[in-house]
């Protein structure tokens, strides 16, 4: 336990001491927020208003709240994964600069090392994502805030689960990497692609039916939907309180992916939690097994 604790401490310290790694990870959600607010807020707003039936008007603050909720849910859903990949670079850097050799000549077990990287990355990523969530909530507070205390608590729970998923996924992928160039390549691919395939940059409801079916299998899609549900739940509740027709509210939920369909059946939030949680467990299992196999091969 002393060894695991020391490894976690060392990994977290290294992450925060490496200004390049830390600031890149921290600045990514901030840049995304600025870019979204500058370039996409109007697009989201227009598509949101286009979805409203004719003759139905909505208060300006509620519209802004919906758009803001959609924006921050997209940013947070993506950040939990991209920041995890960034934080988990340490695992590859240790291979590239030889630190891993120093660990492997000691009696420390491969599984302890693996868990050390996982927990350290999880903590570093959570610190950054929670800071990002705080800034995002301040942003929605300014444009239109409809989230309840429960929604906020659940949002933080979603961030925790998505970060666990991002950390586990990055751990499995990074296991096969060993150079700085590979880290950069994987980082770029994840940053540019993940937002699309998880439905953060564009709701998957806007994709073709076939693509929707494929994307609905991916755990990230369900993670994004969870975040989106808790960011927009207050807005939809307010619409219902303002006697918006149920069909309209449901249609809006569909448009922004609060409802995800698997084999044409809507997936309940509890099932999304279960699916994402199970994926995390499987990925962690794969990661530990990979480390144990590698360690046995060396013997």
């Amino acid at each position, binding site marked *: 336990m002393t060894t695991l604790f020391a490894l976690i401490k060392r990994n977290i310290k290294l992450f925060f001491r*490496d200004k390049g790694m830390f600031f890149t990870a921290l600045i990514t959600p901030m840049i995304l927020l600025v870019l979204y607010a500058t370039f996409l807020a109007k697009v989201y707003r227009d598509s949101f208003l286009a979805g409203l039936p004719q003759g139905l008007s909505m208060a300006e603050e509620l519209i802004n709240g919906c758009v803001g909720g959609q924006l921050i849910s997209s940013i947070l859903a993506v950040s939990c994964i991209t920041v995890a990949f960034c934080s988990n670079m340490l695992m590859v850097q240790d291979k590239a600069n030889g630190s891993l050799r120093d660990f492997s000549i000691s*009696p420390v077990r491969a599984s302890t090392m693996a868990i050390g990287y996982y927990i350290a990355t999880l903590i570093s990523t959570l610190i950054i994502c929670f800071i990002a969530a705080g800034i995002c909530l301040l942003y929605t507070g300014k444009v239109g805030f409809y989230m309840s205390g429960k929604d906020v608590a659940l949002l933080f729970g979603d961030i925790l689960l998505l970060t666990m998923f991002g950390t586990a996924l990055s751990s499995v992928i990074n296991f096969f990497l060993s150079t700085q160039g590979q880290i950069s390549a994987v980082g770029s691919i994840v940053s540019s692609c993940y937002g699309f395939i998880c439905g953060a940059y564009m709701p998957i409801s806007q994709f073709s039916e076939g693509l929707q079916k494929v994307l609905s299998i991916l755990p990230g899609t369900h993670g994004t939907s969870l975040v989106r549900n808790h960011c927009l739940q207050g807005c939809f509740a307010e619409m219902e309180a303002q006697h918006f027709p149920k069909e309209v509210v449901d249609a809006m939920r569909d448009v922004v992916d609060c409802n995800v369909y698997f084999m044409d059946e809507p997936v309940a939030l509890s099932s999304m939690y279960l699916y994402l949680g199970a994926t995390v467990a499987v990925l962690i299992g794969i990661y530990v097994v990979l480390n144990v196999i590698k360690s046995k091969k*060396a013997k």
Partner: protein
Amino acid sequence: MIKIENLSKSFGEIKAVHDLSFQVREGELFAFLGINGAGKSTTINIICGQLSKDTGSVLIDGIPLEKNPADTKGKLGVVFQKSVLDQALSVYDNLQSRAALYGISGKEFKERLSELASLLDFQDLLKRPVGKLSGGQRRKIDIARALLHHPKILILDEPTTGLDPQTRKLLWNVIEKIRKEEGMTVLLTTHYMEEAADADYVVIIDGGRLIAEGTPLELKNTYAGDFLTLYGAKEEDVKTLEVPYETIRNGYRIQVPHTAAATQLILQHPEIFEDYELTKGKMDDVFLAATGKKLEGGQEE
């Protein structure tokens, strides 16, 4: 302390280590010589448990390497060619995290750190990031890291490459002190022949095979012969000896196969040998004679 028998390791078609056998005795300073690619690092990586062997056996302290790797690793301290400490962290943080790998923490760590800091004279460096240290200072910390857990065997993989002579001397003094006080066994790979000359036992490998082994004296006697340096003699007198010689600044250097031959030569021509000295060949000569290759001192791999 280390017994290697018929060790072989291949990477595809390349035989990095081929049927290698040698023994390192307890408390010994053992030098492992070879040019780059000779198989030194592969052998050391196998001893450290970082590479698997194809065939053969490796016994550390009488126990096969694969039987209890964790226990074996606890007996080894390794100083790598290149520092593998965390450049961004302080010396203290680095040593604290590495000590924890061996279950050393709290008061036990602080006491050991204090011992090593005083022994290696780095008390003033504890708060400085490793990346900001000079080469010599960093080497001291590397050695401290290797000694944290009181290893029985210290493996030094070209530890003094690139260091200034003063720092090299300091490090060797410390290693010698610890070796003598704690009876620690030291396995050294080096490019510096004068370091190998101070070893208790030397093994020379080339192409993954053992080429020569013995004490420096045995190796010098076998491979390098002796040299008689003759001062104040005339060249025509030296020619009468009918042995190969070379002219040096203030005399002549005569190569003889061994000390007995030198003695015989002196006794036969006492009138010529009025002022002379007898020296053994150098380890460079041994290496050249054994492998046919020259080992360039101080070059980094």
